[in-house]
């Protein structure tokens, strides 16, 4: 089986521009254009969040697709399942808006859609090669790679730093 890609977050690269939030909301709108999305009602919702920590650190947060996903097991309506690509999905038709998933998500990345009374979350943009948030990030703070590729890049970077430190 080929390795699935994950969304990795490099918090040190985030400048807090919120391009990811905008792109996510547009991707999850009916029109899929910024112009159309702004006019839509209910307003399209972003599933990625950028939080701020004092003194000035920005932290993009997105569903981690937990291996032992608490939300999936906690759901009292059977609305949350993992698809063949490893993505944890909420079936909006089955969701009854009891918010049990919100209560158990340790990352706080499941939203409540008040107009439709349904939970919503990152769906990894099933219609796209690369999730919209990752495509939109101008600083490379969001990375879409397989675990081996990502950890390989981290190792390569670390070795370069080590060599530099040694004066190599």
């Amino acid at each position, binding site marked *: 089986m080929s390795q699935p890609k994950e969304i990795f977050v490099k918090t040190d690269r985030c400048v807090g521009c919120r391009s990811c939030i905008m792109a996510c909301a547009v991707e999850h709108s009916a029109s899929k254009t910024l112009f159309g999305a702004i006019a839509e009602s209910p307003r399209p919702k972003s599933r990625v969040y950028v939080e701020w*920590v004092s003194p000035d650190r920005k932290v993009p947060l997105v569903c981690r697709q937990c291996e032992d996903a608490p939300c999936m*097991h906690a759901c009292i*309506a*059977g609305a949350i399942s993992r698809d063949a690509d490893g993505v944890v999905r909420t079936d909006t038709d089955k969701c009854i808006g*009891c918010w049990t998933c919100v*209560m158990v998500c340790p990352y706080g990345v499941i939203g409540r859609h008040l107009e439709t009374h349904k939970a919503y979350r990152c769906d990894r943009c099933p219609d796209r090669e690369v999730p919209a948030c990752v495509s939109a990030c101008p600083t490379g703070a969001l990375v879409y790679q397989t675990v081996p590729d990502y950890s390989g890049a981290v190792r390569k970077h670390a070795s370069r730093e080590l060599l530099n430190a040694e004066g190599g």
Partner: protein
Amino acid sequence: MSRDRSQYVIVGGSAAGMAAAHAIREKDARGTITVFSAEADMPYFRPLIPFLVSGRKQPAEMALAGCGPYTGGDIDIRTGAHVSKLDADARCVVLEDGSCHGYESVLLATGSRPYIPPDIEGIDTEGVFALRTLEDARRMAARLARTRHAVMLGGGLLNLKAAFALLERGVKVTLAVYSPEVLSQLMEPEDAALIRQALDDAGLSIITGVGATGIVADASGVTGVALNDGRALPCEMVCIGKGVRPNVEFLDGSGIQVEEGIVADRHTAASLPGAFAAGDVAVTYEPVTDNPVMTALWTNAVEMGRCAGLNMAGHRTAYGGTFGILNATQVAELPFVSMGVVHTGNGPYEVHRKTTATTSRKLVFNADGARLVGAVFVGDITQVGLYRYIIREKMDVTPFKRQIIDHRLHYGHLLR
């Protein structure tokens, strides 16, 4: 193995039992799994049954099979199968018809049943329900046609959900609550104020501080409820929601340790070899206080059942325990979450409350203020999962206590 012997036997086909069965199947593709379920229906999402009363869902839409994590195959589910005895020496369960079914390991997940107060006269009358099973919901729905007014005895979450289902069907509903306020198990009266307001606005009629003494009936079934304040409420339906009791009677004489429920250790094992316990029937522990605890929550039962399943399949896994109180839901457009220590009274806690016109929250810290031990959120439940995590991990909250009190906490604060 023959049909009267399985590697894994699971007694109880609801949340804990089925979560265990699927967890076993994840780890062991071939071991035989047999589930004995006393109910006639195939396993279903029990919390959805009020939707059968409201008419929003049909039984087929509540089925467990194939939904969420319940996708494992080759699990032999026997419905209508009452296990009447556990013979741990012979390693078998005995069914009502006297037949035996052997096991290498067994999960006792028989759940709980509604508590029916023994002091209410005429409680067996037709039209008196305790909504627990899909069959109960069917019978309740069948009586809707002749029901104009329903009286709910008990102000807990189950009765509230049933009450709203009945309201949707145009039934007038009165909630008779013995406690000073609704949801008394989940929060103190002060914290329930907004919810009470929302319930009143939604058209529920609520009487607090009263109990029922008897059911009035004629040939058509229930015609009213007599209350202990001398009043009699005419009605065609009564719903009892006074908590649950664990189903442990089949273990009489088995030698297994039962203290109200089946005592489970940190790895979900019961006191006899090869036996495990999970769900409403199990006594586990509260991670904050380390006290023994029994809960009746789907989410807890699944979590513990999964853990038991992993242990049965040979993957030794510790269970993290559960809060005595852990609930999220929405009643009358108002979401709320209650978790951990929420009944503070005059106890040794540091309590922070904040109330606005549409939201309220209560954050409970231990006496020295360094640990969060409980929380109630009404109206705004944004990111409440973080608080559960913090309580459960007994984190030192000093670095982000202000954010907790202001309900501005996010995961970024937990990153070093």
